């Protein structure tokens, strides 16, 4: 075999001889083909204008080499030639020319030309290159870029002001400040610091008592630093730490409790992943393990059931993206999910925009398309959906397994259910058998029978949909129901009958067609079966006796979905004899076995009566058992399920998809990682997806990005801005770090110290740099030097939670589900969205527990820059828009909290002065100034009696609106 390139060389060497073989061919080309190509194709496929898709049609070599999709013409084989496919306009993704279809004649001419062997005298003399242009950085160049080089721990700089730094972190910060001949800002006051500390670590304000205690201890030179460290330790140990820091990760993980997008579906178990994140931060699970669990928790060894369940829960990270479950192109769906997974992992863990390489090599970063599909192979080997081919697909609900008594409890219950289920099925079969026997299977041939007396699902002609005039007839006996339909042998091609079954469950069914035979009947009645995997056309000879029980003829076995779109259509197109149709029967495997057994005649009249009696009893028993089944399943212990992925799919490498088009397969690439991040050649098993290897690679100390990206996030969440401010983009188009040595220092230490998040947070908040006052630094408007603290907004959750604290309504119950009635979702149920659409946000738990629907957000979250719930956004925007002001001024929620706070204030016996102090301390964590007292004193002086509640409501609401509430110094 010649490779394609050797053929090309060969052709070039033979040159003229092959090309100018036959003068007639040349003439054909010159007369018919060249003008056609020039007029209709060159606009986009010749170097003079543009070369779309890499395809040139201005020379023979142009179409031989072809564009992104490969050779455009296979000489002699029009059907295999992409060019011919394109001009035929049958393929939606490949229809050329895009503006206007060629005429039928023109298409035929091109077909003829290709059939002739595509003679083309135009040589490559004028054709330059063919070498693919390198667009982004090459792998080798990329390896020299800062973020792809392993971090190194360097010695902190020597600083002039040796008293200021409390540790190496401060030395790195101060070094840069001193380089610019500047000074760090003065320290924040203890009142400011304590508020900053509580919000940063717990998302909640300190109480007045906590402020007092902090300020008291902080002001003593003996205890100040110790007490600060003790406070930090106490807050890190608080369960609220995980609620706040878990929430940060949930932003990164684009956590949501419904799918959003097209047909939004409720993720009933997503809360378990939320709790997993919260608890992981509370338990200070090493970050490398945290990552491993989310990528491959199902594949990691587990010491016990709890650990296994925890790890399984973690894989929801891969499953809870904004999937468009109703995408009809199921291959597209598969690759859209993979893309979303890669995009999320890239941004969340590596700070890389991997998704850019889906259609072509990354335009800027050293990520070739090959790397994308190397990673994609890992996820095409992973099963993310329960069923990829359903009309509306859905995720996997994995039942959890337990140890000891817990497991016994569930198992015992399940055994009970299984037993009952089996009994029920046996009883049902028995009942069906009795019925089948009573009616002699499909009834006595030649005798008419009611549809309801037949086994399986039977659709009589009376329940079918008819088009064109069909007449009812009873001429030939032995029909089902009260007759059959005949086309009267008229209007051929204009009459059809559709039988649409309501099937109780998905599975394979034998489809049978009932008719009564006759000599004048059609010998080739066309019948179409539309099943879950396509359609089938069969012909039935109605002159013959039906083969099954003299009543039915089998049309074959097909797969159907429960309540799916399957149906059977009988037509009279192309027929010459009478077409009749009586009924269609759907028989499950079970039905078939019952029928087989039932073909024995019953004896005598008495026996028949006994049988009838028995049947009644059996039917009653079935009903009874069904009722207890319902009771048992709803009342017994419910085994928890989690959203998870597994390795149940087809394991193996996948192919590059040319221009990202799923159907256009290119070369197969072995599963692998990003080449620029090291030369490790992983070995993939042909039994596992490779997620485990991917997890190890991501969480490896040798990976130059994972620790850096996360340390930067922690810095960002503490300071309000990162050392690299593009927290999701550490590629070449991202921003360079302001303190590269510090970032590396922190990253290396983070890994050395066992990836402990709490240690890292502790070190940062105890640094001098973190404890400075808000200020401005000359020449550094964006505070890239971190010479002072950033003034930050309270984020959406902090605003809501604080208002609830002040009103006294906050419910501090931790963890657990928060959406009522969130049961198993039937994706095809038209009401599946209603829990989301009709949800009333009335709960008063912390905001991390507020239902995170994708199509219906809490209004306060929408207004106050909650990150887009559909994608990874580790750093939240801070916008200032009028709807925020309108929300604070007029929304029922804010008014209700202000009123509740007012009522609480008035319920105490304190004088107004003290009430005002309390109001300030609760909302702003500080005492009012004289001026502020004066503003409110005026309002209170005017308000007496009934107006007091209103006056206090207004005071609280005004405080909620105030600058010092909305900002954190």
């Amino acid at each position, binding site marked *: 075999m010649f490779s394609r390139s050797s053929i090309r060389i060969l052709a070039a060497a033979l040159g003229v001889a092959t090309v100018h073989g036959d003068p007639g061919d040349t003439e054909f080309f010159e007369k018919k083909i060249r003008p056609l190509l020039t007029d209709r194709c060159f606009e986009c496929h010749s170097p003079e204008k543009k070369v779309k898709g890499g395809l040139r049609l201005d020379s023979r070599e142009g179409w031989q080499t072809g564009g992104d999709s490969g050779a455009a013409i296979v000489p002699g084989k029009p059907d295999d030639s992409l060019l011919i496919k394109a001009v035929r*306009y*049958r393929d*939606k993704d490949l229809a050329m020319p*895009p*503006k*206007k279809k060629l005429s039928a004649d023109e298409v035929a001419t091109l077909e003829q030309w290709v059939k002739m062997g595509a003679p083309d005298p135009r040589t490559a003399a004028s054709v330059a290159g063919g070498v693919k242009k390198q667009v982004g950085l090459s792998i080798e160049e990329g390896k020299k870029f800062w973020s792809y080089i392993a971090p190194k721990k360097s010695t902190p700089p020597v600083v002039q002001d040796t008293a200021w730094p409390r540790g190496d972190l401060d030395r790195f910060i101060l070094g840069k400040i001193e380089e610019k001949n500047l000074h760090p800002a003065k320290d924040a006051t203890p009142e400011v610091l304590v508020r900053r500390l509580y919000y940063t670590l717990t998302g909640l304000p300190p109480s007045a008592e906590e402020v007092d205690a902090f300020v008291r201890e902080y002001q003593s030179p003996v205890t100040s630093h110790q007490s600060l460290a003790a406070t930090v330790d106490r807050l890190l140990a608080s369960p609220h730490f995980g609620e706040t820091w878990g929430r940060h990760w949930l932003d990164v993980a684009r956590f949501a409790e419904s799918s*959003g*997008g*097209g*047909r*939004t579906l409720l993720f009933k178990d997503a809360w378990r992943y939320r709790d997993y994140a919260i608890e992981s931060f509370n338990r200070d699970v090493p970050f490398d393990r945290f990552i491993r669990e989310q990528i491959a928790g199902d594949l990691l060894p587990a010491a016990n059931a709890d650990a296994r369940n925890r790890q399984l829960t973690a894989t929801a990270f891969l499953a809870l993206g904004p999937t*468009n479950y*109703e*995408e*009809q*192109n199921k291959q*597209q769906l598969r690759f859209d999910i993979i893309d979303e997974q890669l995009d999320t992992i890239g941004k969340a863990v590596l700070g890389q*925009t991997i998704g850019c390489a889906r259609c072509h090599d990354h335009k800027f970063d050293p990520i070739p398309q090959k790397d994308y599909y190397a990673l994609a192979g890992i996820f095409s080997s992973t099963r993310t959906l329960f069923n990829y*081919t359903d009309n509306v697909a859905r995720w996997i609900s994995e039942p959890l397994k337990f140890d000891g008594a817990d497991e016994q409890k569930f198992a015992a219950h399940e055994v009970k259910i299984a037993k009952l289920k089996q009994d029920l099925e046996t009883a049902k079969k028995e009942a069906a058998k009795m019925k089948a026997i009573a009616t002699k299977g499909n009834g006595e041939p030649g005798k008419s029978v009611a549809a309801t007396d037949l086994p399986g699902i039977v659709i009589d002609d009376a329940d079918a*949909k008819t088009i064109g005039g069909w007449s009812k007839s009873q001429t030939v006996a032995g029909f089902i129901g009260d007759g059959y339909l005949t086309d009267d042998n008229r209007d051929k*091609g204009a009459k059809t009958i*559709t039988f649409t079954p309501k099937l109780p469950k998905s599975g394979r069914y034998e489809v049978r067609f009932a008719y009564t035979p006759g000599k004048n009947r059609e010998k080739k009645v066309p019948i179409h079966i539309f099943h879950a995997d*396509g*359609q089938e056309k069969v012909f039935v000879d109605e002159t013959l006796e039906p083969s099954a029980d003299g009543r039915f003829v089998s049309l074959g076995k097909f797969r159907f979905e429960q309540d799916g*779109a399957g149906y059977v259509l009988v037509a009279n*197109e192309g027929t010459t004899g009478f077409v009749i149709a009586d009924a269609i029967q759907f028989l499950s495997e079970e039905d078939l076995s019952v029928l087989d057994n039932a073909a024995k005649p019953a004896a005598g009249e008495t026996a028949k009566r006994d049988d009838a009696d028995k049947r009644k009893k059996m039917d009653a028993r079935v009903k009874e058992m069904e009722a207890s089944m319902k009771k048992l399943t709803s009342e017994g212990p419910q085994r928890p399920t989690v959203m998870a992925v597994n390795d149940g799919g087809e394991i193996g490498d996948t192919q590059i998809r040319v221009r990202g088009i799923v159907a256009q397969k290119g070369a197969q690439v072995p599963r692998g990682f990003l080449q620029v991040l090291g030369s490790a050649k992983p070995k993939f098993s042909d039994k596992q997806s490779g997620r485990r290897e991917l997890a190890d690679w991501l969480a490896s100390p040798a990976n130059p990005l994972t620790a850096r990206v996360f340390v930067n996030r922690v810095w960002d969440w503490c300071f309000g801005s990162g050392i690299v401010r*593009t927290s999701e983009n550490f*590629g*070449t*188009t991202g*921003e360079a770090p302001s303190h590269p040595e510090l970032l590396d220092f922190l990253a290396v230490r983070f890994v050395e110290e066992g990836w402990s998040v709490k240690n890292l947070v502790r070190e940062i908040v105890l640094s001098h740099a973190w404890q400075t006052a808000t200020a401005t630094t000359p020449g550094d*408007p*964006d*505070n890239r030097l971190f010479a002072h603290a950033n*003034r930050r907004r309270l984020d959406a959750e902090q605003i809501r939670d604080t208002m609830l604290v002040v009103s006294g309504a906050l419910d501090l119950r931790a963890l657990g589900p928060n959406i009522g009635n969130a049961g198993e979702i039937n994706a095809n149920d*038209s009401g599946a*969205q209603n829990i*989301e*659409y009709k949800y009333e946000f009335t709960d008063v738990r912390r905001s991390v527990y507020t239902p995170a629907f994708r*199509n*219906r957000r809490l*209004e306060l979250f929408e207004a106050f820059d909650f990150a*887009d719930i559909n994608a990874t956004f580790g750093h939240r*925007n*801070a*916008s*200032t*828009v*009028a709807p925020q*002001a*309108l*929300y604070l001024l*007029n*929304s029922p929620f804010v008014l209700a909290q202000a009123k509740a706070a007012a009522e609480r204030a008035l319920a105490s016996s304190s004088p107004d002065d003290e009430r005002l102090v309390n109001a300030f301390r609760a909302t702003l964590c500080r005492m009012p100034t004289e001026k502020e007292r004066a*503003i409110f004193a005026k309002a209170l002086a005017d308000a007496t009696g009934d107006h007091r509640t209103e006056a206090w409501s*207004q*005071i609280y609401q005004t405080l909620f609106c*105030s*600058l*010092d509430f909305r900002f954190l110094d």
Partner: protein
Amino acid sequence: MNTPLFSRRSALQQLACGFGYMALAGLAQQQALAALNPLAPKKPHHQPKAKRIIFLFMAGGVSHVDSFDYKPRLLKDDGKMMDFDDARSLARTGKGATQRVMKPLWEFRQRGQSGRWVSELFPEMAKHADELCVMNSLHTEGVAHGPATLFLHTGTTNFIRPSMGSWVNYGLGTQNENLPGFVSITPSLGNGGPRNYGNAFLPAVYQGTPLGRVGQPAKETNFRNITPARSMDEAKRQFDMLRELNATQLAQKPGDTELEAVINSYELAWRMQGHAPDAVDISKESPETLALYGIGEDKTDNFGRECLMARRLCEQGVRYVQVNYSDNSNNPAWDQHSNLPKHGDHARAVDKPIAGLLTDLKQRGLLDDTIVWWGGEFGRTPYAEKNGTGRDHNPSGFSQWIAGGGVKKGFAYGATDEFGHYAVEDKVHMHDLHATLLHLLGLDHEKLTFRHDGRDYRLTDVYGRVVKDIIA
């Protein structure tokens, strides 16, 4: 670089819905801030043909072969079983399917001077045939409602991208600082929900503002939180208190423009409380105008009000108004998989209001620089679904129309095959239509980009051609 950062400078860039000016700041500072206002009117890329868009979204997919795309072949072959490349079947099995051809249920007639074909489904719109530029060769992505609806609004079936209105808002800024630049009237929660008017990675100031929610009667529709909860006196008193308190607190942190921006946003909100309700209040409209839109008539009252609100919003400078004829269901409005005659009910609800809107805009001289854009996320098949009484989705070829704003009048562009199934001539992909609409507004779809995660994004991705042939 546009990556949102928490800093003083970028905070200024994201200032104050941008509509506002500094209530408490001096004039020089006001001007400086106005220059940074992200919603200040921006110079378009080229001379625009139109200033604004009203998009009448017909959710669920109107049947083009029963309305604007006349196919005699369907009458001739009505009832015949034939092979079609059914989009749903192709997507799922890679093969076509045998289907029963179904004739249009409404009679087609040539209309007006132009002789454009419009069926009796829309007798009122038909009277404006000479104003319409009908595109009969649209095709799009997505066979199901969710993907196709998202594609129509955001140019992608699956990725998280800004909506078209947000792009326009970003490209052109607003003409009225007291109103949002992009309003979606009674949007649905379904089929992408908020993503269809969302800003995705564009700054939040460019997001669409929902006016009411789907299913809410137009009579009760208003902007969120726009009505003061207290009596005007009490509200004023509280607002004065807030002004004083914030001024005191600002004085402690002088020169912080971010804080000033927040103060400014309260001033703006206060003014919006006065302006915005008025913008959608139709009580001062003349009885003739109300009648024009079918307001007061049982079937047309609701959509008529929404169309009239759209006109009022446009008059007051809103750049992009979408009027949604939709619901929250998975089979929204026009989705007649069975019982195609139900199309008639929907047509009755929208036909007169839309015709009224066109008349009204014309009378006021607004049609010349307003684009009225009508259509659904896809069309419907020329054959009966499951041999029944309705039609399935058809993204491969369908019709939409635009009127006003610099497009040819009484014009038909492109064609589907003889059944109305696939677009075959002068095809207009949804990307092309997006490019063309932006072009009419003075924006070059290849230049209207935003850098996010290290890449320049645009509404049309790497596709789209301006359909110059339809521009007057």
